[in-house]
């Protein structure tokens, strides 16, 4: 057994990639900040058992599994069976000592296990009881996802833990509450727990599921075939168990006169963060990033600096990662600098940093797919052809093979290099939804 003498807060590093050189009069500064967290609870050679905690510390997490039990889950019956099996698999992946609950969701939310407004503490016994309780899962009723999330929030809040996470499965549209109700629930839950969302089958709304995951800083995906659910749930739960630090924010400090154009996560997925800023002292703001295990994410920061003379250098932004500390202050985990240097050397000021160029392309790729699919749905086939053609071109040029493959199920690619495509006459619904759900997935710069 490995010995863990270290706290379970991982080591964070921030690496900034940018071309800091601006021409005379240049004002826009772009930078990619690569944030990597390593170590944490895994420090100390826990190879093969990467996320074991020390006996003294115990796991510091709670998870809630929300399973759609609406009437449509019985059409076909394999869907309900798949959901039950998947939940059982996820329960098996809950580590000893982790708090957990299972919620059945219809137009209302019901506690399936353990009940009584509590969370169970994972052990061989409670896992067996939970799986037994899953037999009670049956289909019938409507869909009001906001109620599921609010129940999950109440249950997760009952445990004094660092990591709170939800896993949500739905098969249909959120028909039994208004979009505003769902929005209000998401706003209420944001920052209180993180949540992965999955759509099973093809009768659900992509933008609803991706919207839930986005608001709650989790992942979204499609599981078109219910048979694939168990593997996906196991993987999601393992990822959740790997989280070691919650409520991490990307903090951006900018000097007087610097305007923030945008802040977005660009890897592993594109996630717009600009409007999710909360002020954090003079000229500083925090952007939520959720919880972190051993992982690496990239952020694109674009700011506009005041003009300065040739030869001048200024700081355009400080990028740091912060977590709330027990005493109400924040702990800075790591920091990187975004700089601006004005030069009359054209060779320096005109070259675009490869990371910046790459992620600008990846963000455009995600947007082109979404716009192309929207155009296709609204009958604008010329617009759809143009946008999806551009997407094919970008995916091909950047080596985003997964997205290129998904695109090729929606369009016939004539020439990827020029982005020449024809819309397919018939497209499987699952293929279109898969492309839409995964449109924000990016790849990193080819080394």
């Amino acid at each position, binding site marked *: 057994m490995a010995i863990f003498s270290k706290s379970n807060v991982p080591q964070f590093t921030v690496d900034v990639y940018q071309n800091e050189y601006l021409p005379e009069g240049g004002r826009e500064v772009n930078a990619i900040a690569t944030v990597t967290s390593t170590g944490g609870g895994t420090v100390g050679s826990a190879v093969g058992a990467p996320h074991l905690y020390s006996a003294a510390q115990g796991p510091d997490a709670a998870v809630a599994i929300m399973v759609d039990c609406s009437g449509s889950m019985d059409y076909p019956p394999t869907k309900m069976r798949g959901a039950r099996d998947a939940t059982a698999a996820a329960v098996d992946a809950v580590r000893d000592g982790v708090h957990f609950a299972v919620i059945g969701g219809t137009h209302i939310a019901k506690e399936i296990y353990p009940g009584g407004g509590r969370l169970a503490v994972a052990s061989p016994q409670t896992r067996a009881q939970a799986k037994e309780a899953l037999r009670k899962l049956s289909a019938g009723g409507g869909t009001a996802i906001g109620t599921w999330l609010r129940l999950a929030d109440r249950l997760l809040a009952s445990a004094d833990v660092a990591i709170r996470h939800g896993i949500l499965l739905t098969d249909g549209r959120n028909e039994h509450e208004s979009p505003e109700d769902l929005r209000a629930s998401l706003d209420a839950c944001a920052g209180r727990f993180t949540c992965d969302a999955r759509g099973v089958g093809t009768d659900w709304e992509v933008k609803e599921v991706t919207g839930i995951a986005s608001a709650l800083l989790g992942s979204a995906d499609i599981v078109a075939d219910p048979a694939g659910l168990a593997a996906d749930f196991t993987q999601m739960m393992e990822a959740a168990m790997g989280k070691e630090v919650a409520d991490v924010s990307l903090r951006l400090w900018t000097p*007087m*006169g610097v305007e923030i154009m945008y802040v977005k996560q660009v890897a592993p997925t594109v996630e717009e963060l600009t409007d999710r800023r909360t002020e954090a002292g003079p000229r500083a703001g925090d952007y939520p990033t959720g919880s972190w295990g051993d992982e690496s994410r990239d952020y694109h920061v674009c700011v506009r600096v005041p003009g300065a003379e*040739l*030869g*001048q250098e200024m700081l355009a932004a400080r990028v740091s990662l912060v977590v709330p500390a027990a005493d109400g202050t924040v702990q800075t985990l790591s920091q990187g600098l975004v700089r601006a240097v004005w030069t009359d050397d054209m*060779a320096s000021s005109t070259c675009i940093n490869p990371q910046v160029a790459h992620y600008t392309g990846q963000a455009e790729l995600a947007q082109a797919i979404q716009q192309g699919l929207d155009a296709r749905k609204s009958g604008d086939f010329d617009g759809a052809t143009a946008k999806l053609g551009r997407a094919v071109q970008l995916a091909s040029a950047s080596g985003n093979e997964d997205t290129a493959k998904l695109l090729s199920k929606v369009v016939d690619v004539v020439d990827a290099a020029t982005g020449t495509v024809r819309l397919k006459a018939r497209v499987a619904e699952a293929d279109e939804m898969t492309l839409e759900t995964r449109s924000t997935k990016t790849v990193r710069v080819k080394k």
Partner: protein
Amino acid sequence: MAPEVDSSHVPAPTHRSADLPGTDSAGGDLAGAVPGASEHASPGRAGQAAPGEAPAEPDDYPLPAPAAPGAPPAERTEAGTPTPPAGTKLCVACRSGHVAPDGYCENCGHAQPRERDHMEQELDTVAAVSDRGLRHHRNEDAFTISSTALPDGSPAVVAIVCDGVSSATRPDEASMAASRAADLALKDSLPRGTHPQQAMHEAIVAASEAVNALAEEPHGAREHQPHQNAPACTLVGAVVAGGLLVIGWVGDSRAYWVPADRTAPTVRLTEDDSWAAQMVAAGLMNEAEAYADERAHAITGWLGADAYELEPHTASFKPDRPGVVVVCTDGLWNYAEAAEEMARAVPADAALRPLHSARVLVGHALDGGGHDNVTVAVLPFPVAPRGAGSA
């Protein structure tokens, strides 16, 4: 200035000291080598020449750097602005923000002047000034000056000036490492009796090794340049000792001989390792054609791991009259390229007031536009007796 790889087919000029105006250590008349090149210093410069005005502080250390060009510091005494506690550093750009430990203003974000933005040093017998200039964001030039003694106890004065190659990584570190290594080597070998010309050759080799060693170190986390060339720089050095003037160089930094009596000609002592100089030396172009070409300033020799083969050039001279040696980077000579232009720029009392002269020469470059970093060392010849400069 990018090392011009494509010009490698041009045979590098094999240096013989006799190629240069002046003579080798065998003796001869330096002043006679370039006839008709004399110019008097301008009266304005000469007017500043009162000997009593020599700087009184023989400080061996760089003086505190003044404010960055374009951002003169101003006293902040207006009503309503609280006087900051003593020791608080206020930003030189906005004059209201405090300076964070990383050197940027907490208010406007502007980088604060760095020590290397402007450096001055003066010894009894030599002085040097280096400045960032007006268009570059950092000073990639470096210099060292020092004074030691030959085995017979007679003084030996050393000045080394280096110019970092901007298109390579960490040019500022390269120039610093090279100048320090060359200085150390000379301070070690001259007192042991090594012939100054041999000592200079060895010093350039030592400087080259110091720059090569930089390429092996992991680069700083902040450097994410698209081009990761090995660090590189030029070097020019001068030794005044035992009645000899020894020059050594690699690259396009230069040394000029400026006699105190300006009726005698001023002479350039170095031959650039540059594309233009090679074209002229090979007889393929005349000087006007060569320097009009956009490749003119591409250097063909430098210190650094990317250099093909190190060819240190050295030359010994035995001047027959007093004067000064001006050792400088192209940040100066771009504004005083011809020997007679340099002669006009050097104050008439340069031998008596080397620091003042170095400042005047840096000012000359800044007045001309300051497009590059500027570094100048001024060495009087013969070595002035101790204390003579500030008498």
